[in-house]
């Protein structure tokens, strides 16, 4: 069932709840929703809903209810126990925001590669030595079980051929050497004024006092090699496979 169909079926219930006529969904309404979103929602959710202080709203996944009515209620009333506030906009304007949110994920680009070949390539290249999918593989690198819904195709492609282009702070590497010459090179798990928490390349966890270091630095490049030897088709296949990794 398409998003639009879901939206239309839900209209009578929405109308009842909001005491409004069927919610708008024209391009003009979506544009109006975007305007409201950018003045009210974007400070936390990002200019294009990409997320920030608040969750990404552009991927079509919502953690507190995914129906249109859920979205309407959450936007109107806020979400208890979170920083999400309510507001005092009219029901029509809220529905416009809902329409805008739906539009963000309505035209998600589809991959051109072959996902089956990509899955074989994933195995052949030994990606599971660092990554985990559906419980299989290593926890050293990011879990890719649902990566298809979290990243754009271009982001996935770039992560394969130039992984250092965008490294999440969780995957920055800490290099720590103590006064006895012991050296640890691993992922920076956490850090405060006095201590640093590191996962080494054997997935062992360590905490060190910074005061005890003779050399401590953070490297923001990726530990993953750049797979530039892959052909363009192979990259597309791998991207297609990763794109299929999303919530069922």
């Amino acid at each position, binding site marked *: 069932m398409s998003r639009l169909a879901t939206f239309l079926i839900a209209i009578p219930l929405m109308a009842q709840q909001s005491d409004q006529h069927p919610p708008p969904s024209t391009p003009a309404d979506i544009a109006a929703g975007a*305007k409201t979103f*950018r*003045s*009210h929602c*974007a*400070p936390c959710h*990002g*200019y294009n809903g990409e997320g*920030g*202080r608040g969750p990404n709203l552009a991927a079509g996944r919502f953690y507190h209810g995914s129906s249109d009515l859920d979205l309407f209620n959450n936007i*109107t*009333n*806020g979400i208890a*126990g979170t*920083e999400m*506030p*309510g*507001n*005092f*906009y009219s029901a029509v304007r809220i529905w416009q925001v809902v329409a805008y949110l739906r539009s963000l994920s309505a035209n998600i680009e589809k991959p051109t590669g072959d996902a089956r070949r990509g899955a074989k390539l994933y195995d052949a290249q030994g990606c599971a030595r660092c990554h985990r999918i559906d419980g299989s593989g290593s926890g050293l690198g990011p879990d890719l079980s649902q990566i298809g819904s979290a990243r754009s195709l271009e982001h996935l492609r770039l992560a394969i051929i130039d992984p250092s282009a965008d490294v999440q*702070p969780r995957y920055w590497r800490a290099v720590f050497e103590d006064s006895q010459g012991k050296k640890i090179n691993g992922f920076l798990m956490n*850090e*405060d*004024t*006095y201590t640093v928490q590191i996962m080494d390349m054997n997935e062992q966890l360590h905490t060190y006092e910074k005061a005890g270091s003779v050399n401590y630095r953070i490297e*923001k490049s990726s530990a993953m090699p750049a797979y530039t030897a892959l052909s363009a088709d192979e990259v597309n296949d791998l991207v297609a496979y990763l794109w299929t990794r999303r919530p069922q």
Partner: protein
Amino acid sequence: MRVILLAALAIATVNGQVSYERLGSSHESANWLTYSGGYRSWRYSDLQRISTRNADKLKLEWVYQMPTTLMVETSPIVADGVMYVSEPPSNVVALDAKTGRQYWRYHRELPTPINVCCGQVNRGVAILGNRVFVGTVDAHLVALDAKSGAVLWDVAVADHKTGHAITGAPLVVKDMVICGIAGGEYGIRGFLDAYDAATGKRRWRFWTIPEPGQPGGDWAGDSWKTGGGPTWVTGSFDAEQNLLIWGTGNPSPDWNADSRPGANLYSDSAIALDVDTGKLKWYFQFIPHDTHDWDAVQVPVLVDDDWRGQKRKLIYWAHRGGFFYVLDRQTGEFLMGEPFAKQTWAKGLDDAGHPVLLPNIEPSPEGTYLWPGVQGATNWYSPSYNPETKLFYLSYWENRSVYRKGEQEYTAGNRYIGSVPLIDLPEDLGNGGIRALNPKTGAKVWEYKLQTKPWAGVLSTAGGLVFGGSDEGYFFALDAATGKEMWRQNLGGIIRANPVTYLVDGKQMVTIAAGNAMFTFGVE
């Protein structure tokens, strides 16, 4: 010290209540009776049982857990063995200050939705007689029975549906409760109110955004009606001059000023009001026509001291824009201003204290990088002044933001900010710490660096200590003279609150909120 203690206990025994005289007394170090520990707002205590000699022996006395997941920014009141704590969003508990056990709890049922720009928080209560006063996020002011928590009166200060909220602690002066308002991100018209402590009836209101025809009322068109200038952090009181000194917040909308040309008085200002009438005596605007959300909602620190050879009544003010100011408290005259943190928006201050702006600092659609960031080089969390070291202590930030100019549209009760700023740069989060400034020059005397940007205030004591906290969850004590760390403890939760200290059964306690709990420490 013994004499002071006995005097304080005697007052408590005789009166059994917290009188106005006690609020203004310099002999109440056993208690913590106002938001900043006194009308001069030094957040300083002359208690010295915890000192540089024994701070390393600080041990946990008790913990009180709050039933909330909201951010805790409270600064408690302690009166005669009872601690009064505000809990977010707008609840109050009375605790035994020795054990942390609860006497009573006031729970406020709130309407939905509630719009508060930066979290449903509360920074504290005020006390007078047998009454405790709290402001609420639905913009009410409530008087509670100090012994039972029963509601004595409950008045609407403003309409929460138009973005008004109360997050700051009230300040009691004489028989009045002074109460500020929040809502600078919702296009409110700011004000400061005084209410009769006995009845809740409003005595006066000072509009921080004057209407046309009034002094300062040169706002374009109807922009004054949505001009901001909130008053969300507790100010100070100069009893000799009968003056309230209070800070005002940003003009609205924050980052798109197209609708509000001009200075936008009295936003981003220090205002001095006659406490009996609410009439303006003087003002000093830190940033005319602010376009960066650099509120002047810091706690004004009132000090009488020599200034370049003359005895003067001074105000020390570390402002969100990154400059430390000294003002004359009688006139508002600008005396000095020096940067205390990195800033890239002003070449300096002119002779009147107005910023000499650098080019290309305005928010833009593509984004303008600037130090300090949106949250400023300091913010609402309290500074401290220690009369023994004569140093001014504060939590500082060194970071930048991307200031973007966006659409602005006023609709009642909804955000009216004109932008989507990038407050924190993910790969350049900045850092902060504690700095001690020589208030005569603005020069840094020492600093205690932190990995992260602290949202906690500081407390200094006659024991030669400065207490502070961090977002990392550490509560620490520093040598007030040198900044050397004397003690620290990880409390396991973000600290975004101000510390206080008091005596109970002759034992000095230090309290701060961390995570969703109150932690109290002492030395055996």
